[in-house]
């Protein structure tokens, strides 16, 4: 078990190093100096108090989205639809946040939060039920439901729920001032929401690694038949994983709008969920690993925006590096297995001979 973990850490390190090397090669191939690129990236991630704030916020964002992917995957359902769940959570809570502005925050905020997690969870419930009851592939349904949710929210924010305020293109009414979260470092994205994100992340980590429910979910995800045979409600456990995942995405949608945008805007997210999903995939859905590595990928991600503005290297490079890391780790696993098989075969041949 122990050597297994070291082997994993080694392969992760090698894959990340190779991924960064390939990133450098791509920069060189497109006529940019890799050292310039990476130093701009470092400056962007840690250069000032403001960039530290942005990097830390991105870390928390990756943490909650990564864990959301992991929870569903551990329970056996690959949730690619977090983006849509986040949009619905964002619009539902923002709408209430504007309507309930007169109420005391002690009542209004929990109501908004409830609306956010319920709409996220409900939207995740649909593909979960389709998967568990009808065996419909969840990757296809969740990704198509992303598009549906984004179109729906864009319709609402441009139509029935459009604000009358001037100068706002596609957004809902402003959320009550008393309900908004304050920024911890002025000018950066770091706001009070990180305490809530941290609490949710720890709760989910505890649930998945320290409770029987988490253990049963893991069992169901690994072998659904076995879990049914020993008397577990495999269907409910799978759906439960998706519900938690959807609720987390809905909550993040609310945090984004209540802290940074002050209203729901159709462009509030630039595929935030997919960033976290990639981290979760790289970390093979290990909750602790996701929490620890979020900082590294958060720095890469935030640094890339500065790299883009100062060196004209598109920040998409980070997505390329991340997917290359996934490919490398996937290939490495298979490669080692082949080497081992080969060795075993040679040993048996020698024994027989």
């Amino acid at each position: 078990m122990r050597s297994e973990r070291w082997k994993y850490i080694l392969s992760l390190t090698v894959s990340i190093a190779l991924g960064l090397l390939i990133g450098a090669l791509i920069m060189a191939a497109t006529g940019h100096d890799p050292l310039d690129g990476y130093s701009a990236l470092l400056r962007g991630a840690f250069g000032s108090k403001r960039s530290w704030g942005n990097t830390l916020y991105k870390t928390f964002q990756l943490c909650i989205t990564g864990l959301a992917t992991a929870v569903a995957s551990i329970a056996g359902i690959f949730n690619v639809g977090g983006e849509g769940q986040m949009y619905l959570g964002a619009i539902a809570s923002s709408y209430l946040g504007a309507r309930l502005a007169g109420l005391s925050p002690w009542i209004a905020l929990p109501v908004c939060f409830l609306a956010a997690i319920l709409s996220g969870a409900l939207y995740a419930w649909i593909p979960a039920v389709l998967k568990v009851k009808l065996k419909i592939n969840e990757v296809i349904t969740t990704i198509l439901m992303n598009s549906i949710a984004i179109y729906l929210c864009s319709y609402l924010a441009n139509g029935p729920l459009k604000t009358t305020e001037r100068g706002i293109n596609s957004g809902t009414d402003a959320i009550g001032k008393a309900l908004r979260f304050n920024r911890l470092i002025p000018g950066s994205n770091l706001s009070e929401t990180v305490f809530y994100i941290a609490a949710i992340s720890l709760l989910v980590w505890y649930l998945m690694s320290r409770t029987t429910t988490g253990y049963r979910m893991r069992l169901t995800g690994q072998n659904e038949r076995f879990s049914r045979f020993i008397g577990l409600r495999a269907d409910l456990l799978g759906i439960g994983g998706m519900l938690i995942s959807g609720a987390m995405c809905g909550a993040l949608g609310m945090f984004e709008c209540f802290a940074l945008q002050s209203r729901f805007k159709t462009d509030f997210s630039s595929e935030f969920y997919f960033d976290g999903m990639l981290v979760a995939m790289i970390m093979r859905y290990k909750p602790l690993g996701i929490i620890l590595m979020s900082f590294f990928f958060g720095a890469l991600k935030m640094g890339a925006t500065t790299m883009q503005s100062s060196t004209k290297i598109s920040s998409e490079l980070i997505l390329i590096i991340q997917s290359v890391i996934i490919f490398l780790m996937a290939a490495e696993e298979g490669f080692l297995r082949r080497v081992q098989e080969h060795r075993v075969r040679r040993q048996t041949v020698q024994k027989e001979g």
Partner: protein
Amino acid sequence: MDLSSIFNVGTLLNTFNTATIVILAGLGCLMSEQAGMMCIGIDGMMTAGAFAAAVGSWYSGSWLVGVLCAVLVGLLFGCFYGVMVVRYHSDEFIIGVAFNIFAVALTTFILRTVFLQSGSFHPATGEIKTLPYLSLGALGGTNINISLMVPVSWVLIALLQIFLYRTPYGIWLHASGEHPDSLRSVGRSPEKMKYLGSVLCGLFCGLSGAYLSLGYLSTFTENMSAERGYVAVACVIFGRSNPVLVFLAALLFGFIDAAGMRMQGLVDPTLTAAFPYVGTILMMVFLALRNQRKLKAKAGHS
């Protein structure tokens, strides 16, 4: 409400135009599906193909070179997918989803960093030569112009139908997914057939991408496949990997898309844009419910 505003020749044309994207990608997807692999990554292959086609056609000034570039890129990506799944036994879904993110990121990166443009590809000099259009006269006051790729896709459906059900290669391909051991017992390598399946998958997805950027539109735009690759996978499941049935499923998708566009006077356009995706999910639910009922009926009989 006037029904003729929704059901007319223009809608029919749009149906075929949109369906062709899904048909070509679906043909690719069903080749890998026949070999027992679900290729979620076709969305990425389409995006990469579309980009290669637009750049190739612009650089050489010939649409044929553009199509060849797209096919080449598709083949490369198909090989890559085959190596990952067949040789290294990677999880198809993880590879597929990572693959789609990779393709969108790579094409966007090259567009922004090399061509210094964002959003879509609009070269300052030269032009992107699109696929030739066939003029079939006029019907009901609408001029009928279709892209060359539309009839080509129909020919491909017929050819694939013959290939899959009338040639030994097609049967071996199917066997490599369904009964790899029996295929091995007759001296054929299931791995080789799986490679064939994934390479052909890449080829057709490249063609679909070429049609996207040189036929359906006349340039490349970022993330231009717009999840149609996933729709194609759904159509392949719906059509049980049979080319003709997949064609019909794709037509249904194309029709929902085209009819939605015609309904923009009645319903908000942002809502009609979501129709094809809702339709695709409903299609899958319908099929699953029917299958379940069949299974239950069978269990009741025995």
